[in-house]
């Protein structure tokens, strides 16, 4: 039995391979013909809406926003976008495998910090002539656009903006005798507030929390503290780390002190990312640096402000995902139709802003939904003061589970050991590879 079925399977799979090769061959010939008219540059201002099926990949943390956008697009267009959501940790591997075998979807989003590298590797098609045709080009978020620009040509548009903001639980602030309407103005006040909440000694309630074993979380939440006081994290070319400077040291010292005082959620020390926001969302943490995309899914009354630095100020990490047309897409004109719609007032205001998300066009910052919720105005205002770091080896230097950045932070904050200058040089070494 085994042998017979084995033999048949082999025959069948051989036949399958043969058929697939033929189909591929035919498809390839077909593309050559279409390529001339179907390129993204010739797509026209709004692309083509002819009932094509498009594929779109994104990673799990932005699933909610991606679903809303895709549903709204499918409801109002003949083209149909099929969304695939991939777990955060597997996304790079999946995109990499697809890129190597020329199997990328028509559209795919990428964590904005990976975009410079992926554009450099040629995973996205050049969108510059299409972007130039947009009347509101100058209002599109600069950080995202710059991350996807290579040799002056834009390859990527902002898909979803995710800003890191200071969130505080107003009820817990009240219980701790703090003013629930006033945000801590600098890191020292932040630490004092965390300790005050901790001092209420409520069971299961902690002052603050952070993803202390999650490089990406720490980049997202602590870089703004350095920027807020005028510091820098990287050199302009993204090849040198400045994370041993005075501003950065003050940030580490504040957190080391908080950790030692017991005002940080204990699970933070091992938190690798999947649940780094969970305790706050459940109302068990007084205040923390938190992603603005979660504003709509935080069920209780929270205050929102920019992330302060050691000397005050406010900044934010303009994160989230950029999106572009993949090098393998055969339906670039249709894909551009999705992208141009995505940047329109309709999508930005009636889909994103309505869901309390940040719009990626500054001219729409004061939309009618933002006007109803002053917190959204705050977020949109701080977005202008934020930053997006650009470096080729960002993933390896910061986001990877074994990154030198994680080693530096853990040494400084948790272990009270390690040589700051040496750890910082290790980051620079990786950035320069």
């Amino acid at each position, binding site marked *: 039995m085994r042998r017979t079925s084995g033999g048949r399977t082999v025959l069948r799979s051989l036949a399958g391979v043969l058929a697939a090769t033929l189909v591929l061959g035919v498809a390839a010939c077909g593309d050559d013909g279409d390529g001339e008219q179907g390129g993204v540059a010739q797509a026209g201002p709004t692309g083509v809406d002819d009932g094509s099926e498009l594929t779109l990949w994104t990673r799990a943390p932005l699933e909610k926003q991606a679903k809303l956008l895709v549903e709204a697009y499918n409801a109002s267009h003949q083209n149909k976008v099929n969304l695939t959501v991939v777990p955060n940790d597997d996304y790079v*591997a999946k995109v990499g495998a697809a890129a*190597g075998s020329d199997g990328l979807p028509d559209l795919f989003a990428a964590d904005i910090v990976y975009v410079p590298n992926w554009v450099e590797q040629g995973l996205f098609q050049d969108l510059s002539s299409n972007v130039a045709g947009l009347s509101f080009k100058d209002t599109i978020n600069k950080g995202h656009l710059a991350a996807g620009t290579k040799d002056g040509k834009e390859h990527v548009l902002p898909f979803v903006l995710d800003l890191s903001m200071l969130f505080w639980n107003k009820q817990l602030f009240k219980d701790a005798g703090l003013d629930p309407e006033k945000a801590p103005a600098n890191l020292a006040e932040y630490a004092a507030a965390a300790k005050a909440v901790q001092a209420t000694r409520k069971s299961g309630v902690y002052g603050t929390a952070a993803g202390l074993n999650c490089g990406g979380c720490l980049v997202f939440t602590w870089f703004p503290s350095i920027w807020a006081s005028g510091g820098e994290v990287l050199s302009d070319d993204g090849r040198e780390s400045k994370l041993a400077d005075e501003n950065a040291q003050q940030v580490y010292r504040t957190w080391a002190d908080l950790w030692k005082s017991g005002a940080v959620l204990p699970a933070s020390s*091992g938190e690798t990312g999947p649940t780094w926001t969970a305790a706050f969302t459940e109302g068990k943490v007084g205040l923390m640096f938190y992603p603005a995309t979660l504003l709509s899914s935080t069920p209780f009354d929270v205050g929102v402000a920019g992330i302060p630095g050691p000397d005050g100020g406010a900044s934010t990490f303009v994160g989230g995902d950029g999106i572009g047309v993949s090098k393998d897409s055969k339906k670039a004109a249709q894909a551009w139709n999705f992208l141009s719609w995505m940047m329109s007032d309709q999508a930005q205001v009636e889909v994103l802003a309505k869901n309390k998300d940040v719009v990626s066009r500054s001219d729409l910052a004061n939309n009618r939904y933002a006007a109803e919720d002053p917190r959204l105005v705050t977020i949109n205002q701080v977005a202008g003061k934020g930053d997006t770091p650009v470096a080729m080896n960002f993933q*390896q230097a910061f*986001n990877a589970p*074994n990154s030198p950045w994680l080693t530096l932070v*853990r040494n400084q904050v948790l272990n009270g050991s390690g040589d700051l200058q040496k750890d910082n040089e290790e980051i620079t070494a990786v950035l320069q590879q």
Partner: protein
Amino acid sequence: MDVNAPARPPSAPMRGRFRSGRQALLGWLYATPTAVFVVALFLLPLLIVVKMSLSRWPLLTGDQGINAPDNFTKAIDHRFFTDSVVFTVKYTVIATVLLLLLGLGMALLVQESSRWNNLLRASFLVPSALGLASASLLFYVLYSPYASPLAPVVDRLGITFLGSPNAALFSTVFLIVWRYAGFYMVLMLVGLQSIPADVFEAARSDGATRWQTFRRVTLPLLRPTLALTTVLCVTGSLLAFEQFYILTKGGPDNSTITVVQLIYMIAFQGQNDLGVAAALSVLVLAALVLLNALQMRAFRSEGN
């Protein structure tokens, strides 16, 4: 094993009619399905990995041509290479010793068939029905200081499951023992039950104590089983990945990175270099082949 069976025609007819061309052809024909699978599913991937290990092959751009032996030097010079090898060996020793001792102990405990023993056997074996990744996720929640039902107790006692290097190692070993002890118990049980009863009877009538029987009769006759389980356990532990990927991600502070995890990290998490990852895989493969050959030889020579 039975996949290989068609490839080896019974040896007696082979010897007798070896010269007959038709027979040889028939033999090859029988062997073809297996041979095709071996070539397609084992040899070809292996060759691709070897080619990758000799080429510059970034994840996102694919094959960029031969650059041997750069990948091998980069793999060995990697800042986590030594750490990961040391940790993997340490983990393998701990896991193998614990699993084999517990497997044998449990097998001896439930050796006699009775109603209670059947229940015990079943309950020892139940964890084996769970996939390793699912089991790891289960323990991830159990160990989580935040989501675990044990959290209040753990919090009060100030214990951490995954927070320090040693705790993370032993928490993972506990998961592995829980998941695999039943499996090794079954293997040991099969070995124990293949020992003829009259040998034990003879030992007993000679006045041997329990310990003497175990030491001089059971253990020597169990040698083939011990060889099999050791090889399985050592190979499996050296290739440990899922449990650490899910439970610790190599942390805390890069203290629990196994070799396979390092391969994965190099390939997909940051460096994104399939060439270096493939070079490391080839090194691991060579080490495993060598180790298994040595193990087989050790058990065989002692047996003679």
